[in-house]
């Protein structure tokens, strides 16, 4: 039973990371109609900037600032140099151009930092584990990630429901033309939204750094999972991103943790392991297919 609780927390923690990426991705698409594959690169760049800064200065705070700054600046550069020219284009052009960006960023990172994975230490304050229940120690750092995720979700909720920017974001997500008709400086709104998405992706990268190794290609692995989240949650919907991310995180972790064991009660060990590993890696995609069958626009569609 304690194992289930622990795995549940692991699932939530993965969900939180996915949420930080999915929120940006879904808003950028909802407001600007742009599909940005390079969102994963922002995740990677945030992680790298933080890793390098932490290695140089030993300060997690500085690493956090550097990671956010790098992701934010890069996001703005991407928006200014490439994406701005693509708003009026179809999705195909956007996919291809941002695919080109991925190749470029991955190789740039290799040229600058080499191929060897980097690692960030967990900040001393968050090292160690706490006993949630007797006999169930859980790493503090993972709890911190969950807490940060909740704060980000709350912050976004306040931003979207209580501020003028948020009002425009909501309006833009439901009806892009309407925002233009309101006479809003659309460029500014775009920049704000894109910057926000980039910062969140960078933050996710910074948080992921001490858990997983910082390496080239880390962005794409998580990007595709983020797509699944966005599709399940409904495009343009932050609420959908929250639920989609938690759902994907928990389902993925639970399948991975318990499916092989469950199958082993029914068949031979090695076959169960192979089948279990296969099914659990396909699990979230099957989940997505199921959601699509029932609700083609996702669980919380933003557009009517």
């Amino acid at each position, binding site marked *: 039973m304690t*194992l289930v609780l*622990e*795995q549940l927390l*692991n699932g939530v*923690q*993965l969900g939180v990371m996915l949420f930080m990426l999915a929120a940006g991705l879904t808003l950028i698409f909802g407001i600007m109609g742009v599909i940005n594959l390079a969102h994963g690169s922002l995740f990677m760049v945030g992680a790298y900037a933080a890793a390098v800064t932490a290695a140089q200065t030993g300060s997690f705070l500085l690493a956090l600032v550097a990671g956010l700054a790098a992701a934010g600046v890069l996001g703005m550069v991407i928006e200014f140099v490439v994406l701005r020219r693509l708003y009026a284009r179809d999705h195909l052009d956007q996919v291809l151009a941002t695919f080109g960006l991925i190749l470029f960023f991955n190789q740039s990172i*290799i040229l600058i930092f*080499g*191929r*060897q*994975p*980097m*690692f960030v*230490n*967990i900040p001393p304050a968050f*090292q*160690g*584990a706490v006993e949630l229940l007797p006999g169930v*120690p859980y*790493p503090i*750092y*993972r709890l911190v990630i969950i807490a940060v995720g909740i704060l980000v979700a709350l912050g976004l909720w306040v931003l979207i429901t209580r501020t003028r920017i948020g009002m425009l974001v909501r309006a833009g997500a439901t009806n892009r033309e309407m925002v233009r008709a309101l006479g809003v400086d659309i460029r500014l709104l775009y920049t704000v939204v894109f910057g926000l998405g980039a910062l969140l992706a960078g933050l996710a990268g910074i948080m*992921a750094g*001490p*858990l*997983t*190794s910082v*390496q*080239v*290609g*880390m962005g794409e*692995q*998580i990007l595709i999972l983020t797509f699944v989240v966005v599709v399940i949650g409904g495009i343009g919907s932050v609420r959908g991103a929250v639920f989609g991310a938690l759902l994907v995180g928990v389902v993925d*972790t639970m399948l*991975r*943790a318990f499916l*092989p064991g469950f199958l082993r009660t029914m068949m031979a*060990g090695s076959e169960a*392991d*192979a089948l*279990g*590993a*296969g099914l*659990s*890696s396909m699990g979230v995609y099957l989940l997505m297919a199921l959601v699509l069958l029932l609700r083609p626009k996702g669980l919380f569609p933003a557009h009517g």
Partner: protein
Amino acid sequence: MTTKTLIRSLAMAAALAAAPAMAQTPVKIGLVTTLSGPGGYIGADIRDGFQIAIDMEGGRLGGIPVQLLVEDDGFNPGKGKQVVEKFLKTERIKLVTGIVFSNIAGAAVPDVLDEGAIYVSPNAGPSNFAGKECHKNYFVVSWQNDSLHESAGKAVQDLGYKRAFILAPNYQAGRDALTGFKRFFKGEIAGEVYTRLDQTDYAAEMAQIRAANPDVVFQFHPGGLGITFLRQYQQAGLAGAIPMVVAAPSMDLTTMNSVGDSAVGVRLTSHWFHDFDNPTSKKFVEEFQKKFNRLPTFYASQSFDTALAIGAALKGTNGNVNNTDAFRTAMLKAEFQSVRGPFRFGPNQHPIQDWWAGEIVRGPDGKPMMKSGARVMSNHGDAYAADCKL
């Protein structure tokens, strides 16, 4: 005589005329290895280890001038096949080496052998080429894959642990690793888990390990996977609590440096450590450090040995690689000083060598350091040699 045949015979005549000068034309060696992706550092070490051997002899191997052609396989079997095809058909290369990963070897090596060329492996030694499908033109200087993990299993057995939890990614080499480990570890398996090759978070596995509470953990996660695994092992509070024993690929120097403190205390087995006290090894480490400003990993040492082995065969055949039978005979004698000490080829042309224990300890500067220990196995070959009929 048609024009075409005329040209052909003219060309042949020219080639014959040039024959005496052939000794002076360098022998081409094709090195296809993985330079991109997370495993790229391994390919870089293999390339550099080979190059050092050539440099130390002033552009020659075994006294024969050589020309090394390096290409990236992009961590992609299809790409590896293409490179090999180019080597064989366009460059007319007879000597190929360099592949890091078993799956790429599985795809590309048959093409080399089909063309009648020679392949000398500096790293991957998959089981299918070691047994029934062994080939007279196929040599492995590093190890047969299983023996890495067999030595780890033996080490765990020798250390007296009774219950082991074992993990590896769900792919051929991962499954072979666990099979190899179990061949020499006779205790109880407390848990056996296959992870995903694209996995970056092992939280779920850590929880399972804690729940099983074994005496020891054996895991095979090469490169970036291993770094992540070890860090999370520490974060989950398992590092001090449950000892870990791994095979060399899960704890090379690069991994150790990336992992930092959580590597301390991990035990490993390998056929070579950079602190080996024999002249060839010392010279190799010194030259490598001088040129590349870093310590060589065991991958580099294997590649260095591969170059020496090829050099010995070139010397024995006076640089004639076209007579593959003569080349093979020369190669099998293994008349070179390996950085590992004793070395010879078994009946399936895979190494027979010693395996050593090692441990990551805290060095004088406080940083983790790799230290060699006692011999675990002597003159160890592999389990597949018996199936090989050469």
